């Protein structure tokens, strides 16, 4: 059964990828590529292919990261955009621009990663002190925490007149993805693989420190690995694409609603579904006002918030009787 | 007199109160008893207009309550719910003074304040009158709310499980207060109680509900009686008479 769904998802992904490759302002056709039109080949290699790769990696890694966070925090509605991770990563990028030029991608990634990690850890610490830990309350605190960090970021950006460049990271878009400017995103591939290998351990760690230690798990280590994967993937996605809201929340939830909670089983599906979702949203964003392009953050923001509201009313209804 | 005719309340397709008709005479204490989900609180809520009804009529002293202005009704009937969670910080005296709202619309004159004084004294709350409600014990807080109701000075007083969360001493204390309000002030009191023995010892009449239907209405000796209780609670409860009170021994 599972294999069937994965198969269907892969076929869909291939078809849609094909479509994605041939959408754009400058004409690129299969004939043109085959006939060796150098201009078309150039566009194809420099812009179209990188864009597709970026879409697939970003969708996959953000969804998987969301799933891990939900396991670790044992809450269905925790994700990079509801735990301050995205906002911390953005703040990190802003701060890093004081120390590194825009070409020093590695340095900026490092700073952004550290910020995202610290931000997420603070959020987890806040949760320890929170009175309620129900399914509604935790994302609420996370969103608020994120918006406080967001206002620090805006404050600094205003102070140093960097609001313009901040806007680029705050609103995720694949329009700027060109070969030579997105390769950092490849980091998210190994982290996703590690996530898959550690999947069971994340589930156990989510059961709590005592429970998992009792089963012989190095709780702290697993927790730290989980948070590091989260922070790293988020940092590279924010740096190259920008913030994509609710992605890590919506995709894993929809997948688990349909396929259940077994992490090892749903993880590949979540990854595929994430890529598919972003791909569809991106194609829509490019076609709806052709030849102009609606940024991915907006499309996912609209679709994502509708799904999120649906999820809360469905799940929150009985989970939040306080 | 309070008269209820064919009163019905449905949640979804389930009738929580099902075609209940009932007359409660002026003066005295009437208790609503019945198992969980019998519709006691819903019935009380509808009589006090807190819960909208689906069908039926409610008359208080011959007037259908939907035809009376809410403001005027508030001078005739008052209601106290079991959960009185208040979000604002109020002192006992400030809370009690709200009981004058139907008369003063918020602008209390000297006479209104006299009512407040008297209600506070009546409930023996003088020493707490400037304490905040959240600084009081459960029993004291319940007394403060009763003082507010006294201050509202209505003929009919409806209480939804007033003994909830009170210990034995304070429960008995509240019941004694209610009795004195009936005897001294001529009030008519209707309350929902869980414990049949409280209903037995302190009521003049008892209304028994089950599955939204009224199944018995009568004096204490008619209701606190093994066969009637079996019908209400599906339990065999032997009755002992102790000091003139009928006590149901339902513990074994």
């Amino acid at each position, binding site marked *: 059964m599972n294999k069937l769904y994965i198969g269907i998802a892969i076929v869909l992904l291939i078809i849609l990828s094909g479509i994605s490759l041939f959408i754009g302002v400058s004409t690129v056709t299969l004939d043109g590529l085959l006939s060796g039109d150098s201009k078309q080949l150039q566009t194809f290699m420099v812009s179209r292919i990188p864009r597709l790769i970026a879409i697939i990696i970003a969708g996959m890694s953000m969804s998987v990261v969301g799933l891990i966070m939900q396991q670790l925090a044992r809450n269905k509605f925790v994700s990079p955009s509801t735990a301050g991770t995205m906002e911390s990563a953005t703040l990190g990028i802003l701060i890093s621009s004081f120390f590194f030029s825009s070409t020093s991608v590695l340095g900026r990634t490092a700073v952004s990663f550290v910020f995202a990690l610290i931000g997420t850890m603070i959020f987890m610490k806040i949760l320890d002190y929170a009175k309620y830990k129900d399914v509604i309350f935790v994302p609420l605190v996370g969103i608020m925490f994120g918006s406080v960090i967001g206002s620090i970021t805006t404050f600094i950006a205003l102070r140093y007149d960097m609001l313009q460049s901040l806007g680029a990271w705050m609103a995720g878009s694949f329009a700027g993805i060109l070969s030579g400017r997105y390769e950092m995103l490849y980091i998210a591939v190994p982290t996703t693989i590690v996530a898959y290998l550690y999947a069971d351990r994340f589930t156990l760690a989510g059961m709590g420190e005592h429970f998992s230690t009792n089963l012989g798990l190095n709780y702290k280590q697993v927790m730290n690995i989980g948070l590091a994967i989260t922070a790293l993937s988020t940092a590279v996605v924010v740096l190259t694409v920008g913030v994509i809201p609710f992605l890590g929340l919506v995709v894993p939830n929809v997948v688990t609603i349909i396929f259940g909670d077994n992490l090892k089983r749903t993880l590949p599906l979540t990854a595929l579904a994430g890529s598919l979702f972003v791909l569809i949203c991106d194609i829509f964003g490019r076609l709806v006002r052709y030849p102009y392009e609606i940024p991915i953050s907006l499309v996912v923001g609209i679709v994502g918030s509708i799904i999120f509201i649906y999820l809360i009313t469905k799940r929150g209804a009985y989970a939040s009787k306080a | 007199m309070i008269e209820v005719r064919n009163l019905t309340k449905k949640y979804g397709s389930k009738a929580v109160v099902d075609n209940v008709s009932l007359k409660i005479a002026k003066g005295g204490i009437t208790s609503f008893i019945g198992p969980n989900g019998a519709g006691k609180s819903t019935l009380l809520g509808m009589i006090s207009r807190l819960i909208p009804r689906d069908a039926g009529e409610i008359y208080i002293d011959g007037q259908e309550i939907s035809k009376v202005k809410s403001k005027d009704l508030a001078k005739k009937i008052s209601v106290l719910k079991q959960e*009185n969670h208040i979000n604002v910080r109020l002192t006992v005296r400030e809370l009690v003074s709200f009981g004058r709202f139907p008369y003063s619309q918020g602008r209390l004159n000297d006479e209104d304040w006299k009512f407040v004084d008297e209600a506070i004294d009546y409930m023996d709350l003088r020493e707490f009158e400037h304490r905040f409600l959240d600084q009081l014990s459960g029993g004291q807080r319940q007394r403060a709310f009763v003082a507010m109701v006294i201050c509202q000075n209505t003929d009919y007083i409806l209480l939804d499980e007033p003994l909830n969360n009170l210990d034995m001493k304070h429960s008995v204390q509240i019941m004694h207060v209610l009795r004195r309000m009936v005897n001294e002030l001529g009030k008519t009191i209707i309350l929902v109680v869980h414990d049949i023995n409280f209903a037995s010892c302190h009521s003049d009449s008892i209304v028994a509900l089950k599955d939204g239907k009224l199944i018995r209405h009568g004096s204490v000796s008619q209701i606190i009686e093994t066969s009637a209780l079996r019908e209400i609670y599906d339990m065999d409860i032997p009755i002992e008479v102790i000091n003139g009170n009928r006590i149901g021994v339902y513990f074994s």
Partner: protein
Amino acid sequence: MQAKPNKEGHATLKQTALGSTGFVSEQPRQNYHVSPQVLWAKLLSLFLLAALCIGLYMTIGVTDWGFALPRRGIKVVAMLLVCFSIAYSTVIFQTVTNNRILTPSIIGFDSVYLLIQTLIIFLFGSMTLIQMSKQTQFVMNVGCMVLFAVLLYSWLFKREGRNLYFLILIGMIFGTFFGSLTTFMQMVMDPNEFTVLQDRMFSSINNVSSDLINISAVLVILTTLYSLRFFKFLDPISLGRDQAINLGIDHSRVVNRCMVVIAIFVSVSTALVGPITFFGLLAANLSYEFMRTYRHSFLVPAATLISIIAIAGGQLLVERVFTFSTSISVIVNFVGGLYFLFLLLKGAKA
């Protein structure tokens, strides 16, 4: 109508029902926890401070009086309107929803305003935008807002047993949703002039849309007069729905009218200076903390004055003292966000 005390009851009430020897002294007792004199004194000091802030704001650093005064005067009028609107609407909203965390802007009312504004232009085409006067547009927006607010209220709040945190979360996501939708429609309408359009449509504290001040002032005054008719019900409504009904208040009618008033006030403040999410929360809660009373006749003026002090004083600090290029709404959102987080974690009761 005055109460005719029950003669019988009056006499016997003197003894306590619990049997203790209730003494009845004739000295007057203090009626309120905080006496009216103290409350008036507090209000007066807030008023003086607010006046000082405005005075300073009007005069500091002025070289060309003829040029500066009218310009700053307009800003001050806008500020006063916005402060009153936000403070009043937030306090009323918290009273009728019976909590101190929710505010109209936290559950996304002002993003609804922006959405409606965009939607109208979207549906009628941007040609109408030019033809229609800004005032006509504004009135249309307010009308839609009122309709929406009443509908939203009956959908969100009238269901029994709704959890407070559920409402906040839903409201915040709705806010994001409306925000994204607004930007989306603007982009679809005119991708080239997107930013131009955005500038023309939306205002901020630093960029008050002055052509709406007259109509806003009229609207605020009329709405306030209208609200005075049920202002006295606010105190008992803060005891909760059941108590309010018990005290003879037509609860749902008053609450519906409050929602209309709130919708108008939110429209005015959003139209004049754009959304400032956490400002109302701060103003209302500071006023509760400072006044320590439940009485709305003191709470509402206090919240208004505190807002004025915060905005005028804050603006003064930011613009003239620190000469920051920052916007005060960023600071408000930072402080307000922290405070909100604190309220949440403290577990402020529903």
